[in-house]
C-alpha cells in the first residue's frame, strides 16, 4: 500500500509491458567508469535485441533542470518577480534591453544558488564568471542571455534519491546522481503565438528572472529514475526556499538528454527532449524516447543529434523545428559584470560591509534540515517505515498534518500513519484534493482516532466518519457526529429514548438553542 502511494505521489505512470524502463533496474552508473553492462537486469519482453540474444540496450539519461529562483526582484534588475501578472507590467529598462542599460547582480539570487549548491553537496566556486550566450529570439530582447558557461557558481555535487523497484515495486533503493554544475542565468520572456492573425505577442515579465540551471550527469537510465531525482530536487529546493519549483507554473523546467547503447560500447548519439512541463510526463517522455531510439536502431536507422519536444497529447516526442541548423551561441565573457567573488569566514576581508558580500559559511550554518534528514528524523521519532517518511514529504503539507495529528492523539504514530496514508490520502486522491484542501482537519482526525483508541467507535465507523466532513458543513467535530448512534460501539447499554431524538421537530428547534 505504502509503495503504491509512493509511486502515485511521484506521479509516475505505470510502464506498459515492454516499456524499456523496466530494463534498467541495474545500479546507477558513472560516466567515469566504463558503462557497466546491466544484462543481469530484467529484459523487456518484446525487446528484439533480447530475443536475438544480443546484449540488451542500455539507456543513459542526463538532465538539465532550470529552477526559477524565488526572489522579490530579477537577477540583474529591480523589477518584481510575480507569476501571472498582467503582460509586460514587470519590465525594467534593463529587462527590455534599452540601449545603455547595465546588469547589477541581485544578491538574493546568488545566495539562493549558493544555498542550493551546498544542499546538493557541491563545491562552491569562490570566483565565478558570467558569459553571454547569443541567439536571436523575439522573447530574448538583448539578443543574448547572461549565463555562467565557463565558471559556474557551484560544481561537482551529488543528489541522492530513492525509488521503488522490484516486481511488486515494494523494494526501496537509493541512488545517486552527480551534479555537474549549478549556474546562474537569466530567464527569457514569453512568446505568445497568435496563429489566426499570424503574429507573435511578447511578454517580458519573465525576461531576466533569475534561474539556477542544475546540470545532472547522465547517471540515470530510465524515466522513473529521472522523475524520482527531479522530485527529490524539487523537495530540496522547496525546503531551502531557493525556488518554489512548481512545475505547472514553469518554475521548474526539465530537459532530458537521452541516448542508448549496448553495454561495453560507446554511448549512443543523444537527443535532447524539451517541453517536459509536468512531473507526470517526465518519466513518460524519457521512456518513450528511449524506446523510440531502440526501435530506430533495431530497424537499422540512426539516432540524430536533435532536439525533440514531448507532445503530451500524443504521448510521444517529435523533432522540433530546426531553427538555423546547428546553433553556435558565440559565447563571450559578459564585460559589464566583474567576477562574482564569494567569501567564507576565513577569507572574509576585515571591515567589509556584510550587505555587500556573500559568506558561504554563514549560509551553510543556516541551511534547514534537508528532506533526507527530515525523513530519518521521522523514522526515528515515530518509528514509521522509511517508505512512509517518503510519502509524508512528497505530499505537500502531509508531514505537518501527520505531526499535528500525532501531537493531538494518544494513538501510536505507527497506527496514525496507516490512517493517514491509507485512508485519508486515498480519500484525497479520490477527490483530487491536496492536503491543504482536505476537509478533514488534523484536529478532526485526531479526535476521531482518540475515539477509536478509546474504543468508542469502530474503525469502519471512523472510516465512514472521515468521509462525512466532505459535506459543505463538514467542519463539526466528530463528537457531534457521534450523535448518530449506529456508529457507536455498544460499550454499555444505553437507554436513550427514541422520543428524545425524534421529538425535536423543526417547530420546536428554537427551544433547544
Amino acid at each position, binding site marked *: 500500500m505504502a509503495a503504491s502511494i509512493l509511486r502515485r505521489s511521484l506521479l509516475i505512470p505505470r510502464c506498459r509491458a515492454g516499456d524499456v524502463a523496466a530494463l534498467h533496474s541495474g545500479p546507477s552508473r558513472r560516466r567515469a567508469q566504463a558503462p557497466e553492462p546491466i544484462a543481469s537486469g530484467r529484459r523487456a519482453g518484446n525487446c528484439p535485441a533480447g530475443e536475438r540474444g544480443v546484449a540488451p540496450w542500455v539507456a543513459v539519461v542526463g538532465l538539465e533542470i532550470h529552477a526559477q529562483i524565488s526572489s522579490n526582484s530579477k537577477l540583474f534588475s529591480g523589477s518584481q518577480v510575480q507569476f501571472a501578472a498582467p503582460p509586460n507590467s514587470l519590465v525594467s529598462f534593463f529587462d527590455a534591453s*534599452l540601449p545603455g542599460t*547595465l546588469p547589477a547582480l541581485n544578491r538574493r539570487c546568488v545566495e539562493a544558488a549558493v544555498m542550493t549548491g551546498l544542499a546538493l553537496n557541491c563545491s562552491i566556486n569562490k570566483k565565478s564568471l558570467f558569459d553571454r550566450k547569443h541567439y536571436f529570439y523575439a522573447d530574448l530582447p538583448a539578443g543574448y542571455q547572461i549565463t555562467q558557461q565557463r565558471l559556474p557558481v557551484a560544481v561537482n555535487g551529488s543528489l541522492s534519491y530513492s525509488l521503488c523497484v522490484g516486481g511488486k515495486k515494494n523494494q526501496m533503493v537509493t541512488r545517486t546522481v552527480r551534479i555537474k554544475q549549478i549556474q546562474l542565468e537569466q530567464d527569457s520572456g514569453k512568446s505568445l503565438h497568435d496563429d489566426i492573425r499570424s503574429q507573435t505577442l511578447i511578454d517580458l515579465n519573465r525576461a531576466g528572472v533569475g534561474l539556477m540551471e542544475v546540470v545532472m550527469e547522465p547517471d540515470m537510465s530510465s524515466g522513473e529514475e529521472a522523475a524520482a531525482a527531479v522530485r527529490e530536487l524539487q523537495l530540496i529546493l522547496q525546503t531551502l526556499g531557493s525556488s518554489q519549483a512548481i512545475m505547472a507554473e514553469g518554475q521548474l523546467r526539465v530537459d532530458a538528454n537521452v541516448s542508448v547503447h549496448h553495454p561495453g560500447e560507446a554511448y549512443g548519439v543523444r537527443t535532447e527532449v524539451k517541453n517536459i512541463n509536468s512531473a507526470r510526463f517526465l518519466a513518460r517522455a524519457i521512456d518513450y524516447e528511449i524506446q523510440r531510439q531502440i526501435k530506430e536502431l533495431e530497424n537499422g536507422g540512426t539516432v540524430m543529434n536533435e532536439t525533440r519536444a514531448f507532445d503530451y497529447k500524443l504521448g510521444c516526442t517529435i523533432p522540433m523545428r530546426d531553427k538555423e541548423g546547428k546553433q553556435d551561441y558565440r559565447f563571450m565573457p559578459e564585460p*559589464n559584470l566583474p567576477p562574482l567573488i564569494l567569501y567564507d569566514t576565513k577569507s572574509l576581508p576585515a571591515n567589509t560591509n556584510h550587505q555587500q558580500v556573500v559568506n558561504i559559511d554563514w549560509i551553510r550554518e543556516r541551511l534547514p534540515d534537508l528532506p533526507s534528514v527530515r525523513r530519518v528524523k521521522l523514522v526515528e521519532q515515530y518509528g514509521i517505515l522509511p517508505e512512509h517518511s517518503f510519502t509524508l514529504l512528497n505530499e505537500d503539507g502531509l508531514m505537518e498534518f501527520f505531526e499535528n495529528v500525532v501531537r493531538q492523539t494518544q494513538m501510536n504514530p505507527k497506527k496514525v500513519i496507516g490512517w493517514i496514508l491509507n485512508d485519508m490520502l486515498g480519500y484525497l486522491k479520490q477527490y483530487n484534493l491536496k492536503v491543504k484542501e482536505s476537509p478533514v482537519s488534523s484536529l478532526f482526525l485526531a479526535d476521531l482516532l482518540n475515539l477509536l483508541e478509546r474504543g468508542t467507535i469502530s474503525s469502519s465507523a471512523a472510516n465512514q466518519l472521515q468521509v462525512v466532513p466532505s459535506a459543505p458543513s463538514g467542519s463539526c467535530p466528530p463528537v457531534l457526529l457521534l450523535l448518530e448512534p449506529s456508529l457507536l460501539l455498544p460499550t454499555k447499554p444505553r437507554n436513550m429514548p427514541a422520543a428524545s431524538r425524534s421529538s425535536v421537530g423543526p417547530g420546536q428547534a428554537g427551544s433547544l438553542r
Partner: protein
Amino acid sequence: MLRVSLREISAALKEGRVSPTELCQRCLSFIKATKFLNAYITIAEDTALKQAEESEERYRRGQILGDLDGIPVAVKDNFNTAGIETTCASNMLKGYIPPYSATVVQKLLDQGAVLLGKTNLDEFAMGSGSTDGIFGPVRNPWSYSRQYREKSVQNSHIENEDSNWLVTGGSSGGSAAAVSSFTCFAALGSDTGGSTRNPAAHCGVVGLKPTYGLISRHGLIPLVNSMDVPGILTRCVDDAAIVLGVLAGHDPKDSTTVQDPFKPFELTSFIDASKLCIGIPKEYHAPGLSSETLALWSKAADLFENAGAKVIEVSLPHTRYSIVCYHVLCTAEVASNMARFDGLEYGHRSSMDKSTEVMYAATRREGFNDVVRGRILSGNYFLLKQNYETYFIKAQKVRRLIANDFVNVFRNGIDVLLTPTTLSDTIPYVEFIKEDNRTRSAQDDIFTQAANMAGLPAITVPTALSEKGLPIGLQFIGRAFQEQQLLTVAKWFENQVKFPMIQLQGMMDHGHTICHHQKSAFFS
C-alpha cells in the same frame, strides 16, 4: 564672453556679470549661427532655456547646486538623455527618445548644468573622423580659423574653399567642435580607442579619458563595454578637473565602477618637477608620425627635462599589437552589443514583416550603416566556436600583455607617459574619405588605444599649431586612478606651451548663416 573657460564663466555667473538665461540664449544663437559645422544633431532649445531659468532662480535665491550651475554643456549623442532624442547618428535610433538619462548626464543636470543639445558622431561611435553618421560629417572649426586660412592662402591650399574643410577627428567630433567653437563650455564624449582624445587634439581642446571604472557607463550606449569610458572635453585642464569631480564615483547601476569614494580635487599650478619622472615610450615613434608632431614631442620632453624632471625612454613592446588586437575585441563586443537592435522593443523597424527573421534582417540592414554591419559580421566570425580560441582568446591574452607593459613601466618609477595623440594635424574631408573607415580607425587610434586596453587615464593637451596653422595635441597617460597627478602634470604643461586660442573671424567670412550683428556680439 563665450570664449572664456568654464571656471571663468562660473565665476561670472556667481558674480552676476551674466545670467544663466542670457548665457544659454547666447550659446543657442551661436549654435544656430555655426550650424554648418554640423556639431549638433539635436538642439534642446526648450529644455535648455527651462533649465537656465531654473538655474537663474537658484542664483537669485542664492541656492546654487554647484560649480556647474547655469553652465551650458553639450553631450555626445550616444548618451541617453531622458525626453531628448538620442540617435547614435544611426537610422536604427533615429527618433528614439529614451525614458532615462545616463548617470553622467544626470550628474551634470543635478549640478545645475544646462544641456544645450546632443552632439554629432560616427554612427554608434564607430569611426575616427566623425564623418560616418547619418547626419553627415562634422566640420572642424579650425577650417574657418584665421590661423589656418592665412596659412592656406600662402600655400594656396584653398582653391575651392567649400570642399577643403577639415575633419574633426572622431568619433566625438561634434563634442570637440562644440567646445572648440565656443558653443558650450564643456562636452561629454566617449572614449573607446581614442574617440575623445583624437578629436580633442584635432580641434585644439583638452580631451580627458578617465580611468576605466572611475565614471559610470550606465546610459552610455556601448561600443566596447570593456573599454568605453565617458570622456570630458573642455577648453583647459582645470575645467576638465571640475567636470571630472562632478562625474566620478561609484554607481550602483554600473557594476564595473569602483566602490572607493572619489574626492574631487583642485589642481595646483606649481609642481616640483624634480620629483617627476616622465616616460617616453620609444614604440610611439611609429611609421606615419609627422615630423612636426615628432619635433613637438621632443620639445615637450625637453621642456620637462629643463624643468628638472627625469625624462626616460621606456618600452611598451606590445603596444604595436594594439590595433589588431583591438579589432578583434571591438568587433566581438560590437556583434554582441548590437544584437539588441532587432526592431522589436525600440528603434527602427522594417516594414518587411513576412516573418520575425525577415523583419530582423531587414531592420538591421536598413538601420545600420556599412561600418556597423561590417563590424558585426567580423565580430560574429571571431566569436564562432571554431574561431574563439584563435582570435578572441588570443586577443584577450595580447590585451593582458599590453596592459602589463604599462604596469611594468609604472612599477619602475615612471609617473606619467608623454606621447603624441595623433600622427599629425587633421586633414581635409576630401582627403580623409579616400581611405575607408577601418583603415582610418586603425591609423588614427594608434597612440590612444593602448590606454583603453589597459584602462588607464589619459589626457590630450593642445600644444602648438602646425605649419598649416592647425592644432597638434600631445598625450599624457597616467597610472590607474591617479587622475590628480596626471592632470597636475597636464596643467603645468598647458601653462608652459600657451596654446593659441582659435580665431574664428574666418568662420564669419564663411558667411553661411551668420549675420553681422551676431558677429559683433560674439567676437567683440
